[in-house]
Each structure stands twice: as structure tokens, then as C-alpha cells.
């Protein structure tokens, strides 16, 4: 145990025990009264204690000021524009597909022809290898020949398609009146029928037929139903039975409505377009995206894997363009395969000047959907399709550049709370009040501000006074901000309207102690049109603020200004239970040029009980002899007699109420309140105290 008293408790107890041995007639504790003069509490009240830090400041001369500031209008980026969610959706059908070109050749040798030509044929066969003048042959017909293309397709129903039929005559004689028919082998459907009047020796002839509306099977039958030859015209020619007429079929430009085939690798969709941002009220050339998403929705009934590639070459982040690569699994009509994905688009620089840099609100984009070669036959029909949906969602720019348009924004009539004087009453007369309407424009666009009506209103007294000034109701030019070629820092355009006693009645307006300010504003953007040639800019959160700033120097006269302050009080540390009676002294050293009639009440509960202790007295104003400042402090002492009952009740006090009425002194003179003025208060007790 620490000690500072010379006699320890143990020692005293020891001695007392011994004393007790010899004096065993103790009755009660000894007690005596002492006169105590002791401090209870001290405090200092400065003007900075009354005003919140945010409102209070002293100037270089030490004069106290109240600064009041309110935002009258904040022009947000939403006021200018918002990028609506934009979607591009397109459905692609099978007719966008193509099939392999099909080539079929069938040779018809002279020997084969001869074997079907009776005696003349027999002669030709006999003269194989010799030179001989071939006589006229025919008319002949060749038995139907089966052609098989089932390695490429099984069948295809064509909306469109072509077939080239070519006969190459490698015989030493002309052939004439060649008639041919192409049929499906299975159902015998005639696909085409044609005739070549003459095909000269060692030449070829070709005809093109349309396959539109036909269903072509892989197993075909070609039949040369008639052909003749005038022979060699008596001229001996080498008879070679291996020489042939080659029939060649080329099937191409196929646009099937349904096909079961081996499909080649191909781009199903390939589009290069400008993606237009719709419903934009401004004309943007460029934007930096703060947040937002690109979403992709794919739906396919095609029974094959699709490769999706999307790119926005105008969107760049960290030197890389925005692109999406995605594979879509095979689907069916009943169970289409689908993908829905969203991609973060924040941080991208988005060029909105279009593919040719000559427009606005548009960015180039490309969509390519491809399939690989299927390798095996797959059935695609015209009912199959691919749905591609792309869109921007919740795009928020951090920066935008372009032409922000000419708009008129009106605000008000409205009111703003003017509560920094709300606790004041009585008769005030202020001097030197200055009211500024500051416009800080961080937008790269010009503006024009018109301040309409301004009126001060005291809702308690009903007093109202309009602010009058020649500076009101006329356009106030707001210059545009500038930046560093698309990068901060922004140098805002600043404009201020200053009202003081020289150009307005602001002192009178504030002297009615308003708690509300009514006003109306009109703001016009780009009043002179697109003078920047699409170089207006706007940064997110860096917009146009119109603020009202009021500087109230505490230079005033006051008459009967009452302040009521109720403070919580905790007297648990006050150990006065043995106090008998005496006085409390409230000593005040006042440096303010203000008289103060003060009433103090200690209560157990605010408004719910009688005062436990009351006191009243006058605190005299410090004197001003020369100049603006008081000469030192004026000491006042308020004497508060207390009984034992009051002292005991004081312990229960939880509320202390100060009611003070101020008057400036000398009368009818405006005084200045300086920052270093203080009211020093000390509460002391002069009590008879019982030691027990």
C-alpha cells in the first residue's frame, strides 16, 4: 500500500486497540466540525466553445467570425446524361450456312459404248489400236450409271443450289444429240434433264442447272439416254477403245433448307457494325467507363459446337481491346444450348466516334460465329437458328468527352435551412456581413447562372425580408473548366457573386435572425452552343456546385438575447454528504463586453422536478475604454447560500440549466467579440463540514 501520511492505519489501529484495552467504554465515533474552503469546479467559456468548430474561425486581427455554408445546387452528371442499357439481338438461320461443293466424274469409254452398239460396235472393238475411218454411230443409249456421294451427304433439300453438267469428249469423233437425265437413285426423282446437240471431238461442253426446291440424295443415277456420232467422216482415225467421254457433275452454291451432310468449317455469322448507344442526350466522342458490364446471351439449336468471337476494338484497357471468345455446345430445337455471361467493363476507354471517326455515341464492334468442319454427317435444317444478344448494362462513365448540349436547368423556388443562428433571439444588429454565392464549375462546358429571388425568413417571429441587390436577376457567366487532355487535375472555372452592405441589404436580412433562406436559380449549359467542337468534358463526381457562403463577423449589438442551455450533470464525484451548511461561490472573470444576467438551476430531471438548488446573479461586462477591445476582465461573484438539505440534494442533480440574458455594453454600441475573450468560471465551496 502506498503511503503519504506519516501514521499508517495499522499503527493507529494498533494504538487504538491498546487504548481500547484501557478504555472499554466506547459509545460512538468522535466527530468535529471543520471549515472547508475548497474548489469544486472550474471552467472557461470562450466564443469558440459556443460555436461549432465547423462554423467558427478567427481572422488575423483575432475578431471572431461565424462562417455558414450551404450547398444551393449540385449539378450531377445524371442531370446531363445517362447511358441507357443498350442491346443488340440478332437471330441467324441455317440459310446462312454453306455446304461443300460436290464434284462427281464418270468416264464413258469408247469400248463401253462399242459394246452397246451392235455390229458397228463390234467392228470398233475389233479395230482397237488400228487406224480406221469410223462410220456414223447411233443413236445409242447408255445404261443408267449410279453415282454415290454418301461420304459428303445423305440428302439435302435445297432452297437454292446449282449443278454444272459437263461432258468432255475425248473420242476421236464428234458426238451429237447427247441427252442426259439425273435422278435420285432411290425415289427415281428426276433432278435434271438436258441435251447437248454436239460435242466435238476432244472438246467439252457444259450446262448449268438449278437445284432450287429439289431434294438431292447421295445416291444418284445418271442416264445418257441418247447420243450419236457422225463418225470420222471417212477420215481414218486411231481407234482406241480406252478413250472416253467424261461426264462431270459439280454441285455448288448450295443453300439447303435441310441437309444431312458433312459441313465444312465456316463462319456462320460475320458482322462488322457500329454499336450505337441509344437515347443519349449528349453527343459523346469518348468515355472512360467507371463501372458497367457487357453481357452476352447465346442460344443455339444447331447440333454442333459454335465458336463465338466478339470484339469491341474501340474499347481498350491496359492496351488491350475488349473481346469475348466463347464456345457454345451443340443444341437441338427441343433443347437449345444457351449461354448467358456478363463481363466487367470497368476501366475501359471507349471510343465513341464510330468506325470512321466521324460520328458520336457509336463504337465499332464485330461478331463472328463459326463452326469447325463437322467431319461426320450432321443434319442441319432451316428451323435451326442461333440467337446472339449483346448489350451494355449499367454503364457509368468516369469521364466523358463530346458535346454536352445546351440545356436549361431550373431550381426552385426552394429553401435551405439557415440554422446556425437558430439559438439566438432578442434584438440583433449586425455589421459587415458578407454573402458569397460561389460557383465552382468542374465541367468542361460553359454555363450561365441567374440567381432569382432570395429572401430571409424567421419562422418563429414570422419576419421575412427579401434580399435586394442590383447583382441579382441577371446572368452570371460561368466559365468552363480545363483539364490536362483528358486527365486530372481539373482547373475549375470559378465565378462568385459577392453581396455586402455596399450592394445589398444583407446586414438587415441576417439581423432578423432567419432560420430559413428562400431562393430560385436558373443554370444554362453551353449557352453559345458547341463552341468546343466536341471537346466538352465531364468527370464523375467533379461537377458544378453552387454554394452559399456567409461570413458573419461578431461585430454587433445585442439587446436581451436569451440563451438557455441544459447540460447533463454528474455529481457522483462530489463528496459533500457531511457538509452542514455554508455557501457556494460562483466567481466569474468576464472579458466579454457583454452583461449577463445568469440563472442557474440544478434539477434532478429536466422539467419533471423542482429545482434542487437555484441561484441568480449578474455577470458584469468588461469595459471598453479605447478602441475595439475590452481592457482585461471584470470579476463578478455570485454567492449561493446552501443549507445541509440543499447540499444533500445537490448530489441528486443530473441536470444543470443555465439561463442567460445578454446585453452588449456600452448600450447602443456595436462591439466586437475577439477570439481570445474568455469567461473564466470557478465554483468553490465554503462549508462547515463534519468529520466523523
Amino acid at each position, binding site marked *: 500500500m502506498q*503511503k*503519504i501520511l506519516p501514521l499508517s492505519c495499522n499503527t493507529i489501529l*494498533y494504538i487504538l486497540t*491498546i487504548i*481500547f484495552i484501557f478504555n472499554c467504554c466506547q459509545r460512538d465515533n468522535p466527530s468535529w466540525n471543520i471549515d472547508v474552503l475548497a474548489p*469544486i469546479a472550474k471552467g472557461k467559456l470562450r466564443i469558440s466553445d459556443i460555436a461549432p468548430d465547423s462554423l467558427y474561425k478567427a481572422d488575423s486581427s483575432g475578431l471572431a467570425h461565424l462562417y455558414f455554408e450551404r450547398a444551393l445546387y449540385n449539378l450531377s452528371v445524371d442531370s446531363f446524361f445517362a447511358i441507357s442499357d443498350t442491346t443488340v439481338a440478332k437471330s441467324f438461320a441455317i440459310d446462312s450456312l454453306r455446304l461443300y461443293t460436290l464434284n462427281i466424274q464418270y468416264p464413258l469409254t469408247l469400248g463401253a459404248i462399242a459394246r452397246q452398239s451392235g455390229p458397228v460396235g463390234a467392228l470398233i472393238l475389233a479395230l482397237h489400236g488400228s487406224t480406221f475411218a469410223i462410220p456414223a454411230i447411233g443413236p445409242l443409249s447408255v445404261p443408267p450409271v449410279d453415282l454415290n456421294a454418301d461420304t459428303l451427304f445423305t440428302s439435302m433439300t435445297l432452297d437454292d443450289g446449282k449443278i454444272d453438267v459437263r461432258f468432255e469428249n475425248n473420242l476421236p469423233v464428234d458426238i451429237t444429240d447427247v441427252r442426259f437425265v439425273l435422278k435420285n437413285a432411290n425415289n427415281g426423282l428426276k433432278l435434271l434433264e438436258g441435251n447437248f446437240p454436239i460435242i466435238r471431238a476432244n472438246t467439252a461442253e457444259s450446262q448449268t442447272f438449278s437445284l432450287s426446291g429439289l431434294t438431292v440424295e447421295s445416291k444418284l443415277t445418271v442416264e445418257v439416254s441418247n447420243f450419236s456420232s457422225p463418225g470420222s467422216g471417212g477420215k481414218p482415225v486411231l481407234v482406241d477403245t480406252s478413250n472416253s467421254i467424261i461426264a462431270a457433275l459439280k454441285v455448288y452454291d448450295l443453300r439447303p433448307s435441310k441437309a444431312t451432310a458433312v459441313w465444312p468449317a465456316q463462319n456462320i455469322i460475320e458482322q462488322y457494325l457500329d454499336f450505337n448507344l441509344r437515347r443519349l442526350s449528349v453527343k459523346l466522342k469518348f468515355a472512360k467507363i467507371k463501372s458497367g458490364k457487357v453481357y452476352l446471351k447465346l442460344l443455339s439449336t444447331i447440333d454442333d459446337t459454335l465458336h463465338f468471337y466478339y470484339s469491341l476494338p474501340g474499347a481498350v484497357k491496359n492496351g488491350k481491346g475488349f473481346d469475348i471468345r466463347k464456345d457454345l455446345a451443340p443444341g437441338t430445337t427441343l433443347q437449345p444450348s444457351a449461354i448467358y455471361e456478363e463481363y466487367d467493363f470497368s476501366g475501359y476507354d471507349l471510343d465513341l466516334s464510330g468506325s470512321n471517326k466521324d460520328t458520336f455515341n457509336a463504337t465499332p464492334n464485330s461478331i463472328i460465329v463459326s463452326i469447325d468442319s463437322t467431319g461426320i454427317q450432321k443434319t442441319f435444317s432451316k428451323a435451326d437458328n442461333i440467337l446472339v444478344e449483346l448489350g451494355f448494362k449499367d454503364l457509368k462513365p468516369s469521364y466523358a468527352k463530346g458535346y454536352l448540349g445546351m440545356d436549361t436547368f431550373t431550381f426552385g423556388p426552394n429553401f435551405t435551412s439557415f440554422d446556425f443562428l437558430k439559438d439566438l433571439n432578442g434584438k440583433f444588429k449586425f455589421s459587415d456581413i458578407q454573402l458569397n454565392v460561389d460557383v465552382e464549375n468542374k465541367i468542361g462546358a460553359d454555363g450561365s447562372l441567374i440567381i432569382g429571388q432570395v429572401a430571409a425568413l424567421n419562422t418563429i417571429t414570422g419576419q421575412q425580408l427579401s434580399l435586394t441587390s442590383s447583382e441579382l436577376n441577371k446572368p452570371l457567366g460561368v466559365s468552363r473548366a480545363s483539364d490536362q487532355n483528358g486527365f486530372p487535375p481539373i482547373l475549375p472555372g470559378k465565378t462568385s457573386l459577392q453581396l455586402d452592405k455596399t450592394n445589398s441589404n444583407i446586414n438587415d436580412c441576417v439581423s432578423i435572425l432567419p432560420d430559413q433562406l428562400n431562393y430560385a436559380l436558373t443554370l444554362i449549359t453551353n449557352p453559345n452552343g458547341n463552341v468546343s467542337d466536341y471537346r466538352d468534358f465531364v468527370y464523375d463526381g467533379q461537377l458544378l456546385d453552387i454554394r452559399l457562403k456567409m461570413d458573419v463577423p461578431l461585430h454587433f449589438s445585442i439587446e436581451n438575447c436569451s440563451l438557455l442551455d441544459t*447540460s447533463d450533470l454528474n455529481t457522483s464525484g462530489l463528496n459533500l454528504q457531511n457538509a452542514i451548511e455554508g455557501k457556494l461561490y460562483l466567481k466569474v472573470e468576464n472579458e466579454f463586453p457583454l452583461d449577463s444576467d445568469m440563472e442557474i438551476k440544478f434539477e434532478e430531471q429536466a422539467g419533471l422536478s423542482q429545482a434542487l438548488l437555484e441561484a441568480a446573479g449578474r455577470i458584469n461586462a468588461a469595459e471598453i475604454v479605447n478602441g475595439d477591445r475590452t481592457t482585461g476582465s471584470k470579476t463578478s*461573484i455570485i454567492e449561493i447560500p446552501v443549507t445541509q438539505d440543499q447540499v444533500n440534494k445537490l448530489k441528486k442533480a443530473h441536470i444543470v440549466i443555465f439561463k442567460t440574458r445578454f446585453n452588449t455594453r456600452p448600450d447602443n454600441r456595436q462591439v466586437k467579440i475577439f477570439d481570445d475573450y474568455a469567461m473564466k468560471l470557478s465554483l468553490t465551496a465554503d462549508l462547515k463540514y463534519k468529520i466523523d
Partner: protein
Amino acid sequence: MASSLSAQEKSGGKNFDLKLGSTLVAGSPDANLIFFHKLVAGGNINDEEKSDILKGLGNNNRIGAMIETQLYGRFFSGSNEHIERKNYYQIVVRDFYWGEADFNRNLVDLILNGNKKYENKSVDLSGMKFKDLRFQTFEVGRYQRFGKMGFYGGLGLISGQRFDDARIDRLSIFTAPLGEFIDLSMNGNAHYSKSSMNRFFSFAGIGTSFTLAADIDIHRYWNLGLEVNRLGFIQFGKPTRLATADTTYRFEGAVINNILDSFVLDFKSPDDIRNDIVHVSDQPGYRMALPSGFKVKLGYFPSNRRLSGCASLEWIPSTNFRLALQTLVDYKLLPILKVGISAGTGGYSVWNAGAGAELRLLNTLIIRADLQSAFNLISAERPASWIASTSVKVRL
């Protein structure tokens, strides 16, 4: 206390004494008993009594107390028929408390009357001292007769219980007008032992003590003795504490930063104030010399007369205990009863006068009680003195 100055008694074949005794010596040459009477008796101290309490107090006032309780067993040997002439061994267990303080009148005045009378004045409380020490002793000793002379030597092991050694060289208190603040200026220090060790036989400190005594029969009935008690030291082991204060301190009550805000009368607690003023540190140990007592005794013990007496002159250097002369005259009223009167001067008081009695049953149980300051207690306005002793002895 080693050799006995008592009437020559026959041993009667008994060779063992067991004795429990206690002695109080306390008082003040400056302070009177009124305040202490009030402390005990209770009741209000009025202004007249306050004035009486302060009467006699000067700039430097002393108060002190010594309390000793001991239990010993004494084993006699030898053929002498008088037990006081026999050799013996003894084992003693002793509890000893010593405490004393110096203070000035202003302190008492401040306590009794408060500080209002010192408004706009400074009250000087400098020069306060306080010491106390409590320890237990295990002592083994031997008394040996050589003809007319006897010598005693005892060696004790000390178990220190507690100590305090405080002094305040400067202490002044200034009360500002209206009590706006109270300034305290203080310089002092206090060594003290750890409170958690404050119990019997805790061995918070350890030390040794010697008891030396000699006596000589200078006449058939007269014996002259010399004693040195508690010659030794005690070392209190760590941690002991050192509290120092060399500061000025202003008490202004609760400081309210903004009276317009909620405020709390948040007074500093005494502990907080003490912590502001006093710096406390652990110390490795503290050695104290024991309050050694030097005593010369002269005894008159005629074996065949009713009257006996003794006188002693005691000195305890380096304490407030002044050279003390104490006398005692006993009268054997009955074979089993003695009554005595005593008087003395010095010590912790100016004078003392009192009486005592001894009851002896079957030469086996001897009970004695003395209240040497009985007359002081009657006169409360005189300097305070409490001197008393009591003992119970069994002889087997």
C-alpha cells in the same frame, strides 16, 4: 528483560518457568490525551476542546509507542535455593512493535479546524516524520552465575513483518481566496515494506539480535544490573517500496472544458491525486538498525521484609524515546498479594505515575499487572502517557 530484578524467591524445587507477558510504552511529551480520549470515547469535539488539544503543541511534536509481547520457557539448573541465583537456559518467542512520529501543530490545527482560516495563506506542515517497525524474534539464551555476578547472553533470529520510514521535509498548503484553488508543495520520501507480507512470521525481513545482560549483587538485598536489548539489525528483502515526492500540485476541482456541454464533476480520487504527487518505485531492500535499548537497573529485594523496589534508567538512542527513569515500590500485603506504586519520567512522555498488583497462587501461578500511567489517564489535559504491563507466569 533478560535477567530478573525481582524479590528473592525460593525455587521450592521447581526448575521451569513458562511466562507470557506484554508491555506497552507509549505517549507523547507534547500532545495531551483529549483527542485520544475522544477517539475512544466518541462524541463531538467542540471548539473549546479543540483549543485544549492544540494547547501545548509546538512546531515539533513527538509521539511514540513500543509494544512487546513475549512467551518464554526458562529451564533452571544449579543448587542455589533462590531461583534468581540459578543458571538457566531460555527460549523466547517475542513480538515487538515500535512506532513514532514527529508532527507540527499546524497539522493538528488543519485537521481539527479545516483550511478556511488559512484563506489566502500558506500553512507549513514541514518536518513530519514517521517510523514504525514490527518483527518477531526467536531467541535462545543462557544465564550463568559466577559468584555474585551473573551474565546473560541471548542470540535471536528475527522475522521482519513490516516497516515504514517516512519523512516529509517540506509540505505547505496554500488556500487561494474563496478557495479557488489549493496549492500543495511537498518534498519527502517514504520507504516501506510490501503490504502483502504484513503478517506474523512472514520473514519479509530477516535479521539477528543479541541480548546481553549482567548483574551483580552489590549488597545482600541490592542488585545492580545492566542490559542491552535488541542489539542487531534487520534486512527487509525485495521488493520494498520507495515513495518520493518533490513537487507542487494545484487542486482546482473538476475541470469543465465547456460548460455548455454535458459535464461531469469528475474529481480526482485520492489515489489519483497521490499518483500525481508521489512517485513509487521498487527497491532492492532496506536495512534498519533495531531500536536497541540500554538499561541500568537497581533492585532492592529484602527477603524478609514486605517492601521491595527497583529503579531503572533506560535509553534507546536514535529514537524519540528520551532517557527514562522508572521506579517501582511493591508492598506485600498478603502472602499471595503484592501491591505497588510506580512513577517515572522521560521516555515517550513527560512523567507517569501509576500502580500495580501481583497475585501469587501456590507459588506456581504468578499474575502481575501494572498500569504505570494510571494517573496520567485521569488527567487528560496533561501530556499523553500510556505505560502498562501484564504477565502470567507458571512455575513448575
